[in-house]
């Protein structure tokens, strides 16, 4: 392990909770509905993050707890039952209904598992119910996906068939690219989790080789291991380096020679390096500060330093699983400062003191930092854009070079008239 510097910080935070992950999960599985059991705050959070108005009827919603629901839990269970019945009557196309716990439902100890069990019996053969918590007292942002996937694992049938299982939501086009490359490598049996249809869950077992596409799936990984799956240790497929090592690790698990991997991907690498050049020119030597939010921060820092030659001031992450991240941490330059957790005020003090060229942060902080003259990139964009893989390396770099390019245009003095 390289000599990175680990720090922990606690205090007030400025991050999304796990409910936010519904925004991309519902797009991944168009036959699923996500029903948050929570408060008006939860409903308002999701609509603020997701731009709900563009949907005639979104595939997510909130069963808003009211005063009478808090008075007696039995009544709350009954009420939830009623809401679910109405919902299914209105949306008969739903195949899987996720009951998503929230801060208030966790605090009043609403037992969503029991509710899901009862509903599963009643709607047997029609709708499946699973529950998980996306509450902000337990989860940050992407951890919501971890919870949702973990909740699906018990529904996955067992199979000893040898297969490669890509775990973590990917953009569909990226997923297709990956599958094509793996097939070219000679791995034919490839499945994804989450699948594109909630009902088409992959079967898993001792010959399932899990390859993570996202770094925020600690609980899912643990449960997949319990089911006998082998988890391939690799950095994450962000950038050329990460993706190459990721492909190599998968190939090794399937006893495919390194030579074969290089043969298949080196044209891709050459192409990607070329595309990366113009972004590198802008990013090279620029100083980067990453605030914690998505858990992608460490992989992004590795990419932006190793491939785009940016200098890392601080790499924040809401949560650090050193075991899962060890391949990534090994690739970081010495003395990289990693900070797990957050005290947003102290961290912003450090941002100002260090005078970075670019800060990766949440949407709540972006405009205030810009107003102080600091260029920003929203972390939420990383989970909505296709950024994985060798072919997307330049696009990924582009997300960071764009704000700098923009800043240069807008602050240029060439238009001043005399």
């Amino acid at each position, binding site marked *: 392990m390289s000599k990175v510097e680990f720090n922990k910080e606690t*205090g*007030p*935070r*400025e*991050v*999304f*909770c*796990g*409910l*936010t992950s519904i925004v991309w999960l519902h797009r991944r599985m168009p036959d699923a509905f996500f029903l948050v059991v*929570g*408060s*008006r*705050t*939860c*409903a*308002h*959070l999701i*609509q*603020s993050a997701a731009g*709900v*108005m*563009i949907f005639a*009827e*979104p595939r997510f*919603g*909130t*069963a*808003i*707890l*009211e*005063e009478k*629901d*808090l008075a007696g839990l039995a009544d*709350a269970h009954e009420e939830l039952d*009623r*809401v679910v019945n*109405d*919902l299914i009557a209105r949306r008969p196309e739903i195949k899987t209904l996720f009951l998503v716990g929230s*801060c*208030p439902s*966790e*605090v*009043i100890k609403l037992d969503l598992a029991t509710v899901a069990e009862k509903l599963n019996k009643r709607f047997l053969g029609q709708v499946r119910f699973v529950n998980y918590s996306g*509450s*902000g*007292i*337990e989860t*940050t942002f992407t951890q919501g996906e971890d919870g949702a996937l973990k909740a699906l694992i018990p529904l996955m049938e067992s199979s000893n068939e040898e297969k490669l299982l890509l775990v973590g939501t990917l953009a569909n086009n990226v997923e297709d690219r990956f599958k094509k490359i793996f097939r070219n490598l000679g791995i034919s049996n490839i499945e994804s989790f989450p699948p594109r249809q909630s009902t088409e869950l992959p079967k898993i077992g001792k010959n399932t080789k899990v390859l993570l596409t996202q770094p925020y799936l600690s609980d899912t990984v643990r449960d997949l291991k319990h089911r006998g799956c082998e988890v391939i240790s690799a950095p994450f497929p962000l950038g050329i380096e990460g993706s190459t090592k990721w492909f190599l690790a998968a190939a090794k698990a399937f006893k495919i020679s390194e030579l074969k991997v290089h043969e298949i991907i080196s044209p891709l690498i050459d192409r990607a390096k070329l595309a990366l050049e113009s972004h590198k020119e802008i990013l090279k030597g620029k100083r980067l500060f990453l605030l914690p939010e998505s858990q992608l921060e460490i992989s992004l820092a590795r990419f932006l330093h190793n491939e785009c030659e940016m200098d890392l001031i601080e790499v924040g992450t809401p949560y650090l699983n050193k075991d899962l991240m060890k391949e990534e941490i090994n690739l970081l330059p010495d003395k990289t400062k990693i900070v797990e957790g957050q005290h947003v*005020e102290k961290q912003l003090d450090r941002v100002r003191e260090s005078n970075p060229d670019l800060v990766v942060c*949440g*949407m*709540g*902080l*972006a*405009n*205030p930092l*810009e*107003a*102080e003259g600091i260029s920003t990139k929203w972390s939420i964009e990383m989970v909505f854009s296709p950024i994985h893989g060798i072919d997307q390396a330049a696009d990924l770099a582009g997300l960071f070079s764009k704000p700098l390019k923009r800043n240069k245009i807008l602050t240029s003095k060439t238009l001043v008239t005399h």
Partner: protein
Amino acid sequence: MELTLWTYEGPPHVGAMRIASSMKDIHYVLHAPQGDTYADLLFTMIERRGQRPPVTYTTFQARDLGGDTAELVKKNIKEAVERFKPKTLLVGESCTAELIQDQPGALAKGMGFDMPIVNLELPAYSKKENWGASETFYQLTRTLLKEKVSSSEKISPLRWKELGRRPKVNILGPSLLGFRCRDDVIEIQRILSEQGIDTNVVAPLGACPDDIERLIDAEINICLYQEIAEASCEWLKRNFGMEYTNTIPIGIKNTIEFINEVHQKLDLPLTNKEELEHKSKLPWYSKSVDSNYLTGKRVFVFGDGTHAIAAAKIAKEELGFEVVGLGTYSREMARQVRATAKDLNVEALITNNYLEVEDAMKKAAPELVLGTQMERHSAKRLGIPCSVISTPMHVQDVPARYSPQMGWEGANVIFDDWVHPLMMGLEEHLIDMFKHDFEFIDGHQSHLGHTATKTKDFINSDEKKDKNCKEGIMWTESGRAELTKVPFFVRGKVKTNTEKYAILRGIPEISDETLYDAKAYFS
């Protein structure tokens, strides 16, 4: 429990944030988990604010719940006070913290600070955003002024005469994330100053705690947005005798009535009455022959109480529209909206469910929708033009240019904003009429997108394949041909009405004559 896919209002603590963020030298410590920080983006993204809202979230986690969350609250309060040095501290909790009952307000008061502390109790499971804003502004006003209640005499609206100065008023209610508040304040101040009336304090927008303490230097209060300011105005009236205005100056008639009301309250003679009619272009634009086609247009209105009531009145009395639907999501203003609806002979729709609004809109078959951003989307789906008149805020509702809703300029803005989508409507009709001409360019698309062409598809569909239509009724070629001649924006309604008529009369085939029979029957 209420199934909600989308909500017009946020939780009450977001209302409190609107007050805190609108003001200076105030800090709000909110006992809340990390996810609640999403609310910051409402201010920094929608309002494009260059400052973070002055809010500290205690960020308690599941592991804190077994331990001492009260200590966590105190630690955050202490840090926030040291760092931000507010002149007044607001302390409250969001939905989850309400359940663990740490009483953060009481804790703060026990910490020995010198500054005033406002303890906000905003019930998250029964109240909403506007109520929270109103309650916060009221509690803040009360906290900062309560010591002066006993010592001060009742304030006479005529005091300015004794003091030998121009009358002074406060403008209360404008806040961040309120609809066009930034510009309304400028417009109203301009109108008042033209009448020789000075503005003492504008609050909460731009005010500091000292300004709140100075409220009683004015003679009367202008209650600009009832949703936010009525409770405070009422308290100031009860305790200091300060009168407040009831008229919301949106539209020409209301603006004139507002000016009259202010003058009457202050016993100030109104000297330029005749001039007032000509301050805005709306009356003439509305009267000019070009606006012939506006008369009798069917309009559906939905929004917050203040803007919905004003819009209905302007639509009917100043533009000559026919109001075919009126509703609000502001339950607090349901009574007033119902009264206005009764005057207009429609049934008021009071709901927080946008799907109900969309259904009502569909049934009313309006030619123009005046609503929130959500109604804009619903209207788009139905192929009806729409203008946005109310919160919830969208980045589009914070335009770079000056565009108030209130006063003279507000009326100008309203005329343009409401009529321009219809102008395009007329253009669409022309496109439809001339689409077979050889000059017509094929790609000429309407701004209404593709929804508006649903009946067009019907018309162009192959009759043999498509026996179409409900209950065995068939459209003959002459019927279809006649339907194409009906302007697109009423075509859907004409089609439904004709079919309804045919069913009623047991007519199996709809010809051009049936269309005219139905038209006569329903007119």
